[in-house]
């Protein structure tokens, strides 16, 4: 499930929506706003969503991307859903650690581990 202009691909695995990112860099605000909008629409369409973001393609991340993830996390929780992250490479994980957001998000090693934790 991905349109030509989409920033994500979504696969439904049992009752979990697994999202992969099309862009290797989630840096600039313009794309991040569009990406955040797509993820919120997905969450709203499948309330209460079980949403897993697979970061395996992602090589770069900015503070604007972290902000978008925080907003999405709140949005999902307000809809009684759950958000988990997985497959974050060590360089990107460092960004989460520096900002201490590794404590705020539910981060798993890989999709299988995350899926089992829902």
């Amino acid at each position, binding site marked *: 499930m991905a349109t030509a202009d989409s920033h994500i691909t979504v696969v439904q695995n049992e009752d979990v929506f697994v999202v992969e990112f099309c862009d290797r860099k989630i*840096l*600039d*605000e*313009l794309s991040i706003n569009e990406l955040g909008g797509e993820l919120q629409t997905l969450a709203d369409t499948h309330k209460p969503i079980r949403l897993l973001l697979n970061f395996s393609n992602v*090589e*770069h*991340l*900015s*503070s*604007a991307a*972290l*902000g*978008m993830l*925080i*907003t999405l996390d*709140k949005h999902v929780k307000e809809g009684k859903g759950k958000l988990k992250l997985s497959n974050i490479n060590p*360089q990107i994980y460092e*960004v989460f650690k*520096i*900002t*201490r*957001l590794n*404590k*705020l998000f539910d981060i798993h090693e890989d999709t299988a581990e995350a899926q089992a934790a829902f």
Partner: protein
Amino acid sequence: MMRLDPMTRPDPKNEDAHRENEDDYREIRVKSTLKDAKTPEKQILNDIKCCQYCKESMFAIKLALEEAMTNAVKHGNQNDDSKSITVRYHVSDERVVIIVRDDGPGFQPEDIPDPTHPERISLPNGRGIMLMKAYMDEVRYRAKGREVYLMKRKPKPKQD
């Protein structure tokens, strides 16, 4: 050549200060929009690649530059696209210096609260400066906060 605010002149005790001569830096001026703010990155990163900086340094510089440009558009120039952003940079075999200047009113960096504080950890904004400081060897605000000086040293090859 810009004039440095006397309060923010490089500290002569700083090991790098005596080597600073910013006259021969390359300069790129862009319109203050998020789209235009992306353009200097390619040129700067190309110059850095030529000096064979490692992958980790490239990641750090790219991230810091992105944060500095976004801050210049949003907070410095307050999304006013009639304003501009000036990027001056210098790449050598020892270090990369990037100076990003906006046309805004400036700010006091010490007024920016700690984004990792429990009361602020779930707010979506305010992590840009923290990331720049974590990834660069030196981050200094000058010209009353209108200009940020970013410096990254080239890591020495690891010796076994």
